[in-house]
């Protein structure tokens, strides 16, 4: 399974629900846009490393909504402190899905530390996250998405990107339509 396959399952499980999804910079956002574009997807076009932080802030602001952030191994390695903050805040409406393909997929598939000795499941556990799981095949991923509402889910995949077009939405439109769903009515813009 490559990232695209994991995103297809994620979209199949969450696409029809009102789950708020934060999508990581680069191919993850573009691939999700191709598979299942919806207003409740926030495509993070810049700020590499902050998908998990945006998801945390949103989950704390909206405890009544399910929030799912899609992150990558390279991005989490850039902001590992986020796992400690997530562990200590532990909102029960927030699931962080780390698609771990051992590569910086959007910049030429240079290997990351997880292709070496680093284990993000152990990092998340060490950071104090109580609910941590790791899957590497499609049926286990489906099962975990059915049963996990919070914590950190590491999805081990092969490196590789699907040939997908760029996102034909400007940043102002991405956030405007997202906030129509993500914020209470008086706050949308």
């Amino acid at each position, binding site marked *: 399974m490559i990232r695209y396959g994991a995103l297809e399952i994620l979209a199949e499980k969450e696409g029809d629900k009102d789950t708020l999804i934060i999508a990581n910079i680069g191919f993850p956002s573009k691939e999700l846009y191709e598979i299942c574009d919806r207003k409740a997807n926030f495509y993070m076009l810049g*700020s590499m490393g902050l998908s998990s932080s945006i998801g945390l802030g949103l989950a704390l602001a909206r405890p009544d*909504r399910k929030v799912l952030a899609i992150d990558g191994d390279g991005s989490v390695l850039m902001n590992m402190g986020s796992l400690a903050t997530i562990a200590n805040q532990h909102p029960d409406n927030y699931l962080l899905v780390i698609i771990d393909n051992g590569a910086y997929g959007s910049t030429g598939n240079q290997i990351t530390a997880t292709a070496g000795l680093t284990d993000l499941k152990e990092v998340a556990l060490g950071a104090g996250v109580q609910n941590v799981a790791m899957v590497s095949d499609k049926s286990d991923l489906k099962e975990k998405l059915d049963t996990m509402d919070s914590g950190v889910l590491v999805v081990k995949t092969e490196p590789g990107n699907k040939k997908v077009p760029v996102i034909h939405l400007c940043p102002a439109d991405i*956030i405007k339509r997202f906030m129509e769903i993500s914020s209470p009515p008086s706050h949308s813009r």
Partner: protein
Amino acid sequence: MDPSEEVFKGIKESGIDFVVSVPCANLQKLIPMVDSDPDIIHVPATREEEGIGICAGAYMGGKKPAIMMQNSGMGNSINALASLNRLYNIPLLIIISHRGIEGEPICAQVPMGEKTPHLLEVLDIPAYKPHLVQAKKTIEKATKKAFEEGKQAAILLSIGFWRES
């Protein structure tokens, strides 16, 4: 007048209801005030850039966020302020303890202290430098403008500010 109390009043009067903090010695009274306020969600972050991301998410969830930090944290916040806040017009109040200026005992604070106003200027983030008596009103005014315009505002609180009374 107590500097921490005046800043806290400014935060409250501005309607800030979500605060991320990374500590500074000059914020040691303010952080517990924010933490114990029942109407503010307080999230201690490990690093300032992370905090900018948390605040952006909170804003998308309908909150009015602020981050409190030492100016040394501006360095690792810049990409987020540009490629997240500025890109999507996400407003933010940034309360900064400004070290490395007049009265600074630690030489390592000086290089970043000197550069901090320039960094804000390059980012087109207005830097307000109130005296104690205007602090509350300045924070209110800066927050109102930032959130109306989808921009960021910095309150630069000097070493001297924290010694005023």
